């Protein structure tokens, strides 16, 4: 049965691919096949139009309930998921640690089971512990979307980054992408390494040795400590946010030196390929990992935010809309 017909969205002509993901959940990009990534990106392209309209809403997920279960502070990602759900006409509820029974010491599973008992379709989980969404996914019937877990994965961020790159540069295959910053603690870096390498891009990671985790090469990325070398000829420079509290943990001596060694400035942008894209998942530390001069001349960073809504609409649609349509 055609999904487009069943859900009432604008036509989703996806080159004869099955309109569903192989899993009920989106936990990570690791192991996700190329055709599924392409399906999500192609679906996002059709949803991007919705956000450009005067009336930014389609009835696709009408009657579905989406819960944002956030165990870690977030404005941007939570808002993006919330808008995505609302633009698909789902009922979206936000639960964050400060306002819930979490502070009363209820276990993660009990909280999630209680929410599920209220009959929800998608639970979007952000948690400071790696593996928390995976743990819930095996115990819940609802679809679980990982909105960032510890240092593990942030799949929708990588999808929106890939969407944005593809939109601007027309392709992913054959590109060279430099990811610069605290790779060790970055779920954005991990998801992007998996996704970009699956899509045929070459990924270089760069940062101080204190922030490059062991075995990163096994995730099909090459590592270097010299930023000039890392950005040389790169088609995309993806900057990561520096967590300033890492200084106390001894991972870098200070922001001044960090900015000198690993900050993106115009001189470094000039070493990259012509028309290279500069990206940042936000929020930025201006003057630390990225100079204001570069940040202000990089509209892409805000395009990433816009595209985030479309990509999250696509993911929710493919998990809740498409799978139910086939049932």
């Amino acid at each position, binding site marked *: 049965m055609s999904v487009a017909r069943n859900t009432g969205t604008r036509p989703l002509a996806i080159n004869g691919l099955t309109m569903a993901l192989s899993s009920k959940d989106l936990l990570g990009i*690791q192991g996700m096949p190329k055709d599924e990534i392409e399906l999500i990106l192609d679906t996002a392209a059709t949803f991007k139009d919705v956000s450009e309209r005067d009336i930014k809403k389609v009835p696709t997920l009408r009657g579905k309930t989406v819960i944002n279960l956030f165990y870690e502070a977030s404005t941007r990602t939570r808002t993006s998921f919330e808008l995505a759900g609302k633009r698909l006409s789902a009922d979206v509820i936000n639960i964050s640690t400060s306002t819930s029974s979490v502070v009363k010491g209820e*276990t*993660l*599973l009990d909280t999630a089971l209680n929410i599920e008992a209220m009959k929800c379709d998608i639970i979007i989980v952000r*948690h*400071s*512990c*790696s*593996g*928390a969404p*995976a*743990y819930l996914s095996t115990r819940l019937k609802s679809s679980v979307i990982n909105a960032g*877990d*510890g*240092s*593990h*994965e942030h799949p929708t961020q990588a999808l929106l980054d890939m969407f944005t790159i593809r939109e601007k540069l027309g392709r992913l295959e054959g590109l060279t992408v430099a990811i610069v910053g605290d790779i*060790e603690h970055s*779920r954005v870096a*991990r998801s992007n390494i998996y996704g970009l390498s699956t899509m045929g891009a070459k990924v270089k990671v760069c940062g101080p040795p204190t922030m490059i*985790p*062991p*075995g*990163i090469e*096994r*995730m099909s990325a090459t590592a270097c400590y010299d930023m000039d070398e890392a950005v040389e000829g790169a088609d995309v420079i993806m900057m990561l946010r520096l967590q300033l509290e890492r200084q106390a943990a001894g991972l870098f001596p200070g922001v001044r030196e960090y900015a000198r060694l690993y900050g993106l400035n115009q001189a470094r942008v000039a070493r990259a390929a012509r028309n290279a894209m500069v990206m940042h998942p936000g929020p930025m530390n201006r003057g630390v990992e990225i100079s204001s001069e570069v940040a202000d001349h990089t509209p892409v960073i805000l395009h990433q935010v816009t595209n985030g809504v479309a990509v999250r609409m696509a993911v929710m649609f493919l998990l809740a809309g498409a799978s139910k349509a086939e049932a």
Partner: protein
Amino acid sequence: MNILIKNGHIIDPADKIDDNLDILIAEGKIAKLGKQGTLSQSGAKIVDAAGKIVVPGLIDMHVHLREPGYEYKETIATGTAAAKAGGFTSVCCMPNTNPVNDNRAVTEFMLVQAGSASARVFPIGAITKGSKGEELAEMGELFAAGCRAISDDGKPVMNASVMRRAMEYSKIFDMLVIAHCEDSALSGKGVMNEGDVSTELGLRGIPRAAEDVMTARDISLAELTGCRLHIAHVSTAGSVRLIRDAKARGVKVSAETCPHYFTLTEEAVRGYNTMAKMNPPLRTADDVAAIKQGLKDGTIDVIATDHAPHALDEKSGEFDYAPFGVIGLETAVGLTFSLVDEGILSLTDVIRKLSTNPALIFKLNKGKLAVGADADVTIIDPNVKWIVDASQFSSKARNTPFNGWKLKGRAELTIVGGKI
């Protein structure tokens, strides 16, 4: 009750017995050993041990019985029941109870509870008050109450000077100092071995060096002080090397490892499997190979379980929040006997590491089957194949990474002080 164990293969490395003999047990002691069929005793219970090995009762130098304070995890009663089910007639219990066993009252309480337990219990006292690593615990009081070893297991004694003084002071009583080797500044908030798998899972890593620098430090301090040092739960190739070198120099150091460190690697953590979370963490295949070599060449004297019971509620949920530790009393024999099939250890070596050596290191008058010895005897079927079913454990806890595993070799009968 008298017991006559017939037709068994006796292996007692302490007394250099490796023969088919019958054993008569009377009044809680080994009364007679004799060629098969030569012993008889009217009224004795006959135990047929044909096809089985009869060995000195196994001794686990490293268990957590959780009582007092954490009775919801395990008690002295359930922990010793697990010991008996697994073939252990004696267990040495670590002091990280609540309150910590850093004083005579706690030790005496444990021994009172042990009076009605299924296996013998030898409490280990704390090195420092509250195991906080600051002031020495009253070792004289602990010794008087019955402790023969001290440890702050679960935590390192981070201050090298405190450890030095503890080692010196322990010499008054010739108490064994058992070191939990971990530099907590290096291990930090780590939850698994640092390496490829931790990078992939996004879990904070504990480098092998966190263990090795402390092993090196404590060996140096043992050299300085002349204290008897025992290194608990060795998990790294580096520590095996350090201990091997120290022994070659004549340092009074002994060492133990646990079945999980020669059976599993960090790969077992995949899927955020909290049953594979323990401290020290599961390491790499290279470390497993080094541990096996260390067992084979005698660098590692003892196999202990580090039996660490936790409630299933605690072990489910976020990997970061789950407590460290796995239980081991009821799987140790099967896992250790696989080393015999692999050609790493002989049957005699296995009994040395599970009974003879722990008795010698702990200075227990045990680990032997000579006439007059306490009748602590374990009868093991080395060939029986069985499947681990945690739901059937005598332990209160179920936190094992080996549930569902097929093992070969199991304790069939455990006799403690002449009682079945």
